[in-house]
């Protein structure tokens, strides 16, 4: 069966450290992998997207890697801040071509950055 697993439901780190979140999947061949941030009481907000033929993407303090052999994506937040505390969701899009198809979401990892 198809699965998306995100590491441990909760991750607690100290301010200034690098947070690393993991997304593993089975039985998918995603064309794209996306990461979203969700704060309590709000809808998810898109952060980064990486394509199947890309190994790494960066945006400010964020870095995403994508290993289609391992079927894994790593999401890094460097120099983490308490304001980074939120739930982070990974999502796969398997559709290719001009039609988007749906996204398949993981359950999320709750990150807490303490001062």
């Amino acid at each position: 069966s198809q699965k998306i697993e995100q590491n441990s439901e909760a991750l607690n780190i100290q301010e200034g450290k690098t947070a690393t979140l993991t997304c593993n999947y089975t039985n998918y061949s995603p064309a794209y992998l996306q990461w979203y941030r969700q704060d309590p009481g709000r809808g998810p907000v898109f952060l980064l997207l990486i394509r199947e033929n890309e190994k790494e993407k960066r945006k400010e303090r964020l870095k995403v890697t994508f290993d289609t052999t391992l079927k894994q994506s790593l999401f890094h937040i460097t120099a983490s801040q308490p304001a980074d505390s939120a739930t982070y969701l990974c999502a796969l899009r398997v559709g290719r071509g001009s039609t988007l198809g749906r996204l398949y979401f993981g359950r999320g990892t709750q990150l807490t950055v303490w001062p």
Partner: protein
Amino acid sequence: GAGVSQSPSNKVTEKGKDVELRCDPISGHTALYWYRQRLGQGLEFLIYFQGNSAPDKSGLPSDRFSAERTGESVSTLTIQRTQQEDSAVYLCASSFPLAGGGEQFFGPGTRLTVL
């Protein structure tokens, strides 16, 4: 406004009543999605509309759930004969029409409480 809007923001209803939830996507987004998120849980896909194509209804949990979309604009999600297990936040998202990863823009959600 510039974002996805949903109404009502909160809805309290009695078991057995029908409810209708509304989503206004971003103008120009032909793809529209509905998700359900129970307290402390991940996103559960419900239905996906893409332009004039037949909707992907594979996530609807029962025949009490239905959704419609008027052209490429407003969508309504209807839940008939509500049950207590329908209590959740219902999120709507929209995307640009063409391939490119399909970054989703989420609305704030409608919190449904079935008494």
